[in-house]
């Protein structure tokens, strides 16, 4: 995997072409994504919006290389995701993508440092070095004083910061966030959003946020709106979707 080094700002990072995802439910097949096409370049800040059940999370799993298309193609950093096997997909996720989920998804009874260090373990980094880098990432998200706390001793906003530190600890090209402020109140949600924007601006990481919140979507330079598995809008932020 040498393509990553050539990913200059503005170069295409993700190319989605005619992407379909169908699920077999009993006897019938249900299409959830029905031919999605878009390109996102390195360093962009994109919000994916749309009503509940429109396929946003399904799309996120596709572009996050956790799932492969039923139809169509997806290229991430030059790799044709549909052609990769389990191990290659795992390596691609580890190397290029940081995930942030609505439900934080931290390991319980595990310190913030060890939670953040987790992706580095699968990158083959030794325990000492990955804890050191985890501390740097925690400092970066403003949790310098909470390194050894377990999730049950952190507030919702702090938990999401730990999750963000975990997402950036590998220096990914892409930050994929599925309703990251969904479990947070307005004020904390805004702080988290500000943190994302800061990372996008300072680290140049491509930011793709799935969100319900119009006020957050508005802040993104580009909105992709999904309705019933199809892209109905791809352009500047929409007013009141």
């Amino acid at each position, binding site marked *: 995997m040498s393509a990553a080094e050539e990913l200059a700002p503005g170069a295409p990072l993700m190319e989605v072409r005619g992407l379909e995802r169908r699920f077999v439910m009993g006897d019938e097949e249900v299409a959830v994504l029905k031919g999605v096409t878009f390109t996102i370049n390195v360093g962009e800040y994109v919000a994916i919006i749309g009503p509940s059940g429109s396929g946003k999370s399904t799309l996120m799993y596709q572009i996050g290389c956790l799932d492969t298309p039923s139809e169509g193609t997806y290229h991430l950093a030059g790799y044709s995701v549909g052609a990769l096997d389990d191990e290659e997909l795992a390596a691609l996720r580890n190397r290029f993508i940081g995930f942030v*989920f609505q439900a934080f998804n931290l*390991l319980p009874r595990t310190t913030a440092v060890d939670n953040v260090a987790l992706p580095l373990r*699968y990158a083959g980094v030794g325990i000492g070095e990955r804890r050191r880098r985890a501390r740097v990432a925690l400092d970066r998200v403003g949790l310098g004083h909470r390194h050894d706390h377990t999730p049950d001793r952190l507030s919702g906003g702090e938990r999401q910061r730990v999750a963000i530190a975990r997402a950036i600890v590998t220096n990914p090209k892409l930050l994929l966030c599925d309703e990251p402020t969904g479990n947070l109140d307005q004020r904390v949600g805004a702080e988290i959003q500000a943190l994302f924007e800061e990372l996008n601006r300072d680290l140049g990481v491509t930011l793709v946020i799935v969100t319900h919140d119009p006020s957050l979507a508005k802040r993104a330079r580009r909105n992709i709106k999904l309705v019933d598995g199809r892209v109905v809008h791809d352009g500047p932020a929409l007013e009141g979707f």
Partner: protein
Amino acid sequence: MFEHVLSALLALNSNKLRAALTMLGVVIGVLAVTLLVGVGDGARKYLDTTLSSLGTNLLNVVPGRTETRGGFGPPPASGIARPLTMDDVRAIERQATLIRGVSPVVTGGGTVRYRTRQRDTMVLGVGPQFSDLRNMHVDLGEFVREEDLQARRRVAILGRRVVRELFGDESALGQPIRIAGGRYRVVGIMEEKGRSLGFDLDDLVFIPATTAMDQFGQTHLSQLLTAARSKDDTASATEEIEEVLARRRNGERVFTIQSQEDLLKTFGALTAAMTMMLLAIASVSLVVGGIGIMNIMLVSVRERTREIGVRRAVGATRGDVLWQFLLEAVVISTIGGAIGLGLGAAIVAVVTKYAPDVPLRLSGWIAAVAFGSSFVVGVISGVVPARRAAALDPVDALRYE
């Protein structure tokens, strides 16, 4: 691999109660293996050392014929048994070349009296070589001598216990005593031998075999004790004695030679069977422990479905997840095994210290088997949960509520 063990340890550390409960079954299983097999093994060792302390490569000739050699006690007499005599002893002495010695044995018993004190005890009529053959030696004075045997002298050698009971602190050597009414003089005192197989080897009186025949009104010997020069000679020595005795009986083999080796083998087979049976019983508890691990691991895989999804999302392959859960099971199981083994060793140490008679021991092979089996139990009980965890689709795992 180190990374997998490390994350297994981290995972266990993050849920100590669950780990401890999971371990419990294996702890008990390994403890059971250690103790039960320890009892069997201890019994075997005990019999081994006890029987060997009686002397080595012993051959015991008794009158009458049995089909099997060895075994326990005197064989059933077959019709017209030609008794064993002193002449048989002399003949063996002269003709047999593969033996260490031979001694007549006349078994009797009676009241031994010194002044006002008395004790009922076993009296053995023997020859001089009995002492070396049976590894029982005098401490003071002399054992039965050849002249005593020939002259049918009324001399007695007392076991320690008999001395204690009859003489207390007085000197026994040279004193007159009565055995079953007959007058004797004490010429020797045996060294302390202790108990063996429940029999008090110090509660004995030895007199010349010829004297014993007179004393107990017997015309023949009870047994004839001899021993092969070496273990390898046992079979040929047996044949040799058989020939000598048969020649004196017109070729009829109306006697039986029991070898100590056969006896040892019989005991050995018995205790080995017992050990195996105990091992089988103990392994049932190990199997139960393994099922416990598998159950809790299966529950754990379900509980940690989200965690599995997260791990996959941040870069874990199916293989990583498989190894993680497999090693968790193995680590739990082997830690449980180590604890069980430690407890077992502690119990063995305590028992050996405070109840040295209990034949319980912990030998290397038991420890190895117990610990090894805890490892195997971990692998076996970890495979199914680990495969289930690895088979999870990452998206399904992340969406799992």
